[in-house]
């Protein structure tokens, strides 16, 4: 089994301007935040982000690196609307491609299965169609199982993702990933549906230890879909990564306030986002927490 463990710098070398990046997790839950900060530090621009959006979309809007966001929602969970995303939308500084939450799943699934689209009813009659004029409908060639004859369905196109990043609780050096929290979200599809996938994890463990960590049902990321593994303890901070840690609500609140105050944002950017490494970031968070 090839060793896929790499450093954050190796990961940064994979990045290019104009890329479409898929980001796993859900809202402010199990987001690969150390890799998001690596993207910020790298300075790549004109990015398209595909995600069940959380702070990554707000952060990359605020740093000016985000050109286009493709999302099912953008939320911090305990703060229902991502504050930097709100500002970016209201100022018109990012392009937004918004899908129904379930329809978004089908864009990932289509990408994973290499089909051009998956059909759904979601969107019919709503302004999702007007908001996305490139969306097409199809007429079913079959009668529906529940009586519909020749019905119209929305064709959700496969997302075209250059590179995905996901964060797992555990991984082995070969690139197998394990989630130990309440929900995998759609991370397997982000891995499967992208040309390349990089996975951070709380801890790299020997393969034979996986079943001591959790049941076989938690082993949902097979290494055939993973190109690199980056060990990053607390790598999802400030988002939650259960059962390893909950969301850092105080830090998230502090982050949210930076959307209202340019000076606070500059300090936050300098202290946390431009920290030279994940270790330096964690040290900065520690000293903040001791100061509060």
């Amino acid at each position, binding site marked *: 089994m090839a060793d896929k463990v790499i450093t954050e710098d190796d990961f940064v070398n994979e990045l290019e301007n104009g890329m479409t990046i898929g980001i796993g997790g859900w809202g402010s839950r199990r987001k690969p935040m150390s890799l998001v900060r690596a993207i910020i530090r790298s300075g790549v621009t004109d990015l398209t982000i595909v995600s069940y959006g959380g702070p990554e979309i707000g952060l990359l809007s605020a740093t000016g690196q985000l050109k286009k966001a493709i999302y099912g*929602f953008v939320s911090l969970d305990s703060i*229902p609307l991502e504050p930097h995303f709100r500002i970016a939308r209201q100022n018109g500084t990012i392009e937004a491609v918004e899908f*129904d939450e*379930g329809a978004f799943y089908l864009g990932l699934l289509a990408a994973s299965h290499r089909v051009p689209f998956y059909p759904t*009813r979601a969107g*019919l*009659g709503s*302004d999702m169609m007007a*908001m996305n004029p490139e969306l097409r409908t199809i007429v079913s060639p079959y009668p529906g199982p529940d*009586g519909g004859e020749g019905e119209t369905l929305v064709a959700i196109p496969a997302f075209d993702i250059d590179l995905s990043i996901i964060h797992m609780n555990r991984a082995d050096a070969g690139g197998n990933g394990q989630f130990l929290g309440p929900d995998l979200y759609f991370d397997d599809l982000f891995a499967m549906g992208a040309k390349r996938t990089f996975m951070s994890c709380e801890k790299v463990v020997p393969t034979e230890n996986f079943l001591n960590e959790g049941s076989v049902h938690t082993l949902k990321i097979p290494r055939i879909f993973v190109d690199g593994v980056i060990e990053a303890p607390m790598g999802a901070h400030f988002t939650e990564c259960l059962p390893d840690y909950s969301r850092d609500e105080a830090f998230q609140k502090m982050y949210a306030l930076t959307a209202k105050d340019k000076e606070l944002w500059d300090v936050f950017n300098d202290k946390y986002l431009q920290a030279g490494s994940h270790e330096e970031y964690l040290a900065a968070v520690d000293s903040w927490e001791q100061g509060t």
Partner: protein
Amino acid sequence: MKRADICVAAIADCFRGEADILCNPIGISPIIGGRLAKATFSPDVVMTDAVSVLATNPLPLNDPSAERTVEAYAPYRTIFDIVWSGRRHVMMGATQIDQYGNQNIAAIGDYKKPKAQLLGLRGSPGNLINHRTSYWVPNHSQRSFVSEVDIVSGPGYDRMRILGQPDNRFHDVHRVVSNLGVFDFETPENRMRIRSIHPGIEMSEVIENTSFELIIPADVVQTRIPDEEELRIMDIIDPTGMRYQEVRGA
């Protein structure tokens, strides 16, 4: 007994007679009302713990440490599957709602560059086209009950008439509960009708706070008052009285 208690009972009544569906209320009063319905007259619906499992016992709001009797695993992917299966009745909020039940939670103004970005479409488009939906509007006013919504996140009956059969066959906007009354669409053109008015509220107050013309039945009844047992269960689900923050007034 306060108005918030009456609203919660009215929300619970939206799920009366239902069984073998996911009762999926979103928001403070809706969750209390849904859990109340399940704990009393609709025991055969299933409900989530708002994280990832279906739990049989009436859970207190926002208490992650509360003991759960887990009956099934329901991560988000399973929730979408249930949406598409149709075995679900969702109750959502609406920043704006119009006479045909079109809902807006997406944004105010033009979606390309909104005056105010709201939550977004979220799951509304898929919910409305797949299964029964009800709405909860805790601040009934001309700003929430509008003549036209800025963006249609959840389509109403006029949009469904245009869409036509068979595409619209699972659409079902069931009830709208506000802090003033309960409304339905059981009228010839599926326009919003007053179903009941909460005790202590005048008809004129409802009319003045609605931007469109409501259909008023010959006999307008009062919303029912919850009984002692229901109030006791509400306090178990909402021990800190969050419902009184959402709906004020005696």
